[in-house]
């Protein structure tokens, strides 16, 4: 059975259809949450933000013109809200969180064991990327966004998207090297 397209749902939401809103929420809330939580690094803040994101959809659905996909539109709203929330946070808190995210937990015996797992090391290094690099990596690999869509969500030219992805991967290779994984690239 074919599910209702996102665009049809948005049309219904524009008409005040709460059920359509519930369907759209069910379809995307997890992905939007994960995108936001990677930016703000706090579950509770991310939950508040996704409520705001979908409330914006409820309010703005009548103005959606279909020039981008609904999921791209959602992520663009989510990104704007997440960055605004980050700006409201004290700098010290941010620094502390960033530091804890890339902290080397080598003292922990459990983690030392985990370190032998290449997959776990790659994930650790992915978490150690800068917010800018992490964002583009997530959008491309997890959210399956094309070059054009990433450009729209992040608000940068398409060539910059490719360049940023390249440098994100280069940085990842450096982090992996520092963890003892030599990939022979770049």
């Amino acid at each position, binding site marked *: 059975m074919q599910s209702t397209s996102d665009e049809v749902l948005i049309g219904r939401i524009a008409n005040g259809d709460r059920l359509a809103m519930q369907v759209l929420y069910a379809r995307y809330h997890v992905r939007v949450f994960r995108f936001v939580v990677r930016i703000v690094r706090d579950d509770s803040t991310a939950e508040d933000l996704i*409520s705001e994101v979908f409330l914006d959809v409820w*309010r703005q659905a009548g103005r959606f013109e279909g020039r981008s996909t609904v999921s791209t539109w959602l992520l663009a709203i989510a990104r704007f809200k997440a960055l605004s929330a980050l700006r409201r946070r004290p700098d010290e808190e941010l620094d502390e969180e960033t530091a804890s995210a890339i902290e080397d937990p080598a003292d922990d015996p459990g983690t030392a064991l985990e370190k032998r797992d290449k997959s776990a090391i790659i994930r650790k290094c992915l978490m150690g990327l800068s917010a800018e690099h992490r964002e583009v990596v997530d959008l491309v690999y997890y959210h399956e966004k094309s070059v054009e869509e990433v450009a729209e969500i992040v608000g940068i030219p398409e060539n910059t998207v490719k360049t940023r992805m390249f440098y994100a991967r280069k940085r990842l290779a450096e982090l992996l090297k520092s963890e003892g994984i030599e990939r022979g690239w770049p």
Partner: protein
Amino acid sequence: MNAINKEPERHEIEALLPWHAAGTLSRRDADRVEQALAGDRELARRYDLVREELAETIHLNETLGAPSARAMEKLFAAIDAEEARAPRRQRSFDFGSRVSEFLSSLAPRTLAWSATAAAVAIVLQAVVIAAVVVKEPGAASGPSAPSDGSFAVVRFAPQATANDITNFLGAYKATLVEGPLNMGGQLYRIRLSETKLPKDEVGKIVRQMQSESKVVGFIAARD
């Protein structure tokens, strides 16, 4: 092996590998990448690295969990609060789009004069009802049509003016809540009472309304 000799071209193809792995390239670009991968062992090795990153990025994101029910509760509480403050008008009551939609569906060359006259009457009626809705901004709206109370469906007489309809609804303390309904014939749902009335009382009101032939073309009780 036909390795890509031109370094800029290889660089360009390599930049596309993440999107190729995610399956988000255009067919044309995907074909270019596939061709390059088939003839360049080093590029293929790098593509394996990309696929490894892709897999771990998905894994990492999947461990991030999901929001609690609180997020959804908060969202719908906010929607309810917003709707209580300022209910939105349903698009079905958007007079401009209704009329243009209707007129665009007409085929002038094949339309009989009688049909044209009927169409004009319906358009005029839409004008009348739109005027009523404008006068009663909260009347026909909401995320879903109200379900509490007693209701009827009505087709207004084509010659009824905005004043006629307003006065008629006012006299019966009725409100327009939904329409035109997907039943054909420009039917509208009106609320007769905010509380559920006994069937015979609803029947009595409907019969009285039916007698107002200047305003009402057709009316029937409806749950």
